[in-house]
């Protein structure tokens, strides 16, 4: 039955490719954007490295940044034979993608004081001869792509006042640098900002919580909208044909106590579609009204065209922290379906065919409430991948629960605003653990599972070699067979994995590059779940792999 499902899915892909143009989110020689392309597939069309030869994959070169605070969480960018890599403290390195030679480095002037959420960075954007980065003290900087010299910088807001900073990679759309921020666990009102790529001037700002007089404002009680969360702390996607950007919006605040914000709390825990030129809201879909579990919907939006009940649809697939994947029509936000990507969930019993949550288990003030998954998420911010060859979505999942302790808290702008606390607990069905799964992205039919005993917090990378790459906290960087989930190859890199691997090619040779170095708020918060977490090692190294040079055929599709 399972095998039959595989063939069926593959058949659909071929039919699509043969008959009509569909959105192509594959990367080729370059890995030009955070999610690979605008569509955030994290899929490379390179196939020189494939299921038949991956066992011969070997290190080509290694770059150590020497800046290992909070691990290495970035997605490198590869353009024209140069890699651009950022560390958690916002230093940036331009590296020769074949040899690892340092071409330039940008040493970020470190903040003199403490910064909310601390140093973390998930990557840069490169476009129009510039490198863009959001910083942990809440600046956006632009560098000359060739020299690393700073061109402009703008302080988005005083991080002490907003209780926010920037950890996500920017999204560049035409001449706009679009940047989201953290702040969902602070007394903060989230927003997205667009800056002119050339001058750094603010072009527009979209507040995720409507102000007085705006539609949706009525979903907040009293003044709660002023500090109601809705941070935009990961990177969005873009559909050029619709001129829409899509962004996931984080939890409502305070995280666990909702008594002061009765209502649906729009547009927290939602996917929003904005006009790419003006930042005006076109549609929204709220996945979790009145969040009480810290279940951000801030993660990546994967844009794909798939057949739904016999009709080709422009879709957006979005996994949230509550461990559910939502499938939406990205033209109008219509709900198409939802399915869990975790085994242990009790905060709801399910989602109706209209997209409404059923059987909410709400934490009770001043009592302990056992909730699955934990506030760290059924999935963390490490990203899924989508392969058009298999037609499947590859997801990392966490089977960890928590006891939520809820207590009312007064909002003070910029200060922490949890409204309680959480204590990690094992799930009901066994020890805390992780898994990688392959799903039909529309139906949610699980194709295979790769189990793992600790926390998988690195992104998925899918390639046309029918491989899925990711890394684990013990240091293994490994390749799974995209069709079976069998582990085909593994290499001990010496430090845990929290970043996002990429594929690129130069002069006919395919490379796989992965950041290594354990760190981040979530990896620390999950540590109590496993005594062995003491041995997960920090670091800050880019490991680059390729097949031995004497054994390869030139990679098709390489621009060089």
């Amino acid at each position, binding site marked *: 039955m399972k095998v039959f499902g595989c063939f069926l899915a593959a058949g659909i892909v071929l039919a699509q490719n043969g008959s009509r143009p569909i959105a192509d989110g594959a990367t080729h020689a370059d890995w030009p954007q955070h999610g690979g392309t605008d569509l955030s597939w994290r899929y490379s069309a390179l196939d020189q490295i494939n299921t038949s030869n991956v066992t011969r994959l070997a290190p080509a070169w290694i770059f150590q940044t020497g800046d290992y*605070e909070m691990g290495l969480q970035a997605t490198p960018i590869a353009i024209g034979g140069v890699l651009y890599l950022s560390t958690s*403290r916002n230093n940036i390195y331009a590296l020769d993608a074949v040899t690892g030679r340092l071409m330039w480095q940008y040493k970020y002037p*470190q*903040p*003199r*004081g*403490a*910064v*909310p*959420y*601390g*140093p973390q960075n998930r990557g840069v954007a490169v476009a129009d001869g510039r490198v863009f980065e959001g910083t942990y003290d809440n600046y956006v900087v632009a560098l000359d792509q060739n020299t690393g*010299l*700073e*061109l*402009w*910088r*703008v*302080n*988005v*807001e*005083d991080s*002490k*006042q*907003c209780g926010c900073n920037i950890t996500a990679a920017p999204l560049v759309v035409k001449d706009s640098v679009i940047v989201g921020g953290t702040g969902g*666990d602070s007394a903060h*009102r989230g927003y997205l900002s667009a800056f002119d790529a050339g*001058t*750094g*001037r*603010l072009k527009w*700002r979209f*507040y995720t919580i409507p*102000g007085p007089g705006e539609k949706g404002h009525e979903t907040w009680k009293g003044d709660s909208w*002023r500090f109601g969360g809705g941070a935009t702390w990961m990177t969005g996607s873009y559909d050029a044909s619709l001129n829409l950007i899509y962004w996931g919006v984080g939890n409502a605040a305070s995280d666990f106590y909702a008594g002061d914000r009765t209502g649906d709390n729009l547009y927290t825990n939602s996917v929003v579609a904005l006009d790419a030129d003006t930042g005006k809201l076109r549609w929204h879909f709220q996945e979790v009204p009145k969040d009480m579990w810290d279940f951000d919907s801030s993660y990546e939006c994967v844009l794909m065209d798939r057949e739904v009940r016999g009709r080709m649809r422009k879709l957006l697939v979005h996994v949230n922290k509550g461990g559910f994947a939502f499938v939406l029509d990205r033209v109008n936000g219509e709900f198409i379906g939802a399915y869990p990507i975790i085994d242990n969930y009790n905060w709801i019993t399910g989602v109706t065919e209209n997209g409404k949550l059923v059987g909410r288990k709400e934490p009770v*003030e*001043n009592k302990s409430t056992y909730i699955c998954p934990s506030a*760290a998420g059924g999935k963390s911010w490490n990203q899924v991948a989508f392969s058009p060859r298999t037609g499947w979505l590859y997801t990392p999942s966490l089977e960890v629960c928590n006891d939520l302790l809820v*207590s*009312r*808290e007064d909002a*003070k*702008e*910029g*200060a*922490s605003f*949890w409204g309680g*606390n*959480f*204590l*990690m607990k094992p799930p009901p069905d066994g020890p805390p653990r992780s898994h990688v799964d392959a799903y039909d992205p529309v139906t949610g039919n699980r194709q295979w599972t790769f189990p793992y005993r600790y926390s998988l917090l690195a992104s998925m990378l899918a390639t046309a070699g029918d491989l899925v790459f990711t890394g684990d906290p013990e240091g293994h960087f490994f390749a799974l067979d995209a069709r079976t989930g069998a582990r085909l190859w593994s290499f001990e890199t010496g430090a845990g994995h929290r970043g996002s691997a990429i594929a690129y090619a130069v002069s006919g040779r395919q490379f796989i590059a992965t950041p290594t170095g354990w760190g981040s*708020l*979530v990896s*620390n*918060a*999950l*540590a*109590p779940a496993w005594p062995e977490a003491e041995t997960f090692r920090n670091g800050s190294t880019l490991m680059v792999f390729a097949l031995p040079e004497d054994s390869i055929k030139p990679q098709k599709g390489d621009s060089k």
Partner: protein
Amino acid sequence: MTHASSLWMLFLSIPALACAQDIPARGADVFAKTCATPYCHGPKGAGGGAPKLAARGFDEIYIASVTRAGVAGTSMQGYGSTLARADFNAVIAYVASLNGVDPRGAQIPEPARLSPQAARGRDLFFDSVRGVDRCSTCHQVQGLGIAIAPIAGIPATPVALRNAAAPDVRTARVGADHFPALIVSVGGRRTVLYDLTTPPPVMRTVESAALKIADDNAWRHAAIVKSYDDRELESILAFLRSALLNALPASPPATLPAGVRPNPRP
């Protein structure tokens, strides 16, 4: 909120009754809400993403200094000005108790209170509802806000504040683009300046050879003080007088209004 904790808050809100025995309990409450998530110090300071705080041999002086100032480069912010004084002292006492130190209670007196008008001015100065159209987009007071233009003097009236000219704001031309600019530094190869076209100001690095600076000095503070009416500006000025009176020269230079630093001309 339960009946018991409501009573607690009522009890604690009466300062005369906040005797030494209550402080660790209040500190435990503050700690639970502010410090104890697994991302930070964990319940009872057992450790999490941030270091363990229990049984570390810390004394009150060390705990207070770190808690007041924070730890640079980390998410450990300074709580010296964000926590109410009584809460600050209570949480210090609580963490001290986790280290086997007898809590001695409050050591730091409450800061002087602002007048109602100045307090309102403070809220307006930092008002996040106005987005970027607020004073703290360019000015820092009491460590909060963005220190782009230091406040060198306080105008007497809202009218003076609006009309204030700024001698070091010039017109910069880069190619076809021209904009009001606050010059930061001028070098042989590169000039650094703030582009004031639209808030927030953008610090730009421009090739000196490609830059022309016109000495027209036409920019006025009124160009960006748009979101406040005169009554609101009165309150803001009252706040600045309270907050900065001792920090500023006795007689500020008449030519330098609010928002302008003395700046060497290129």
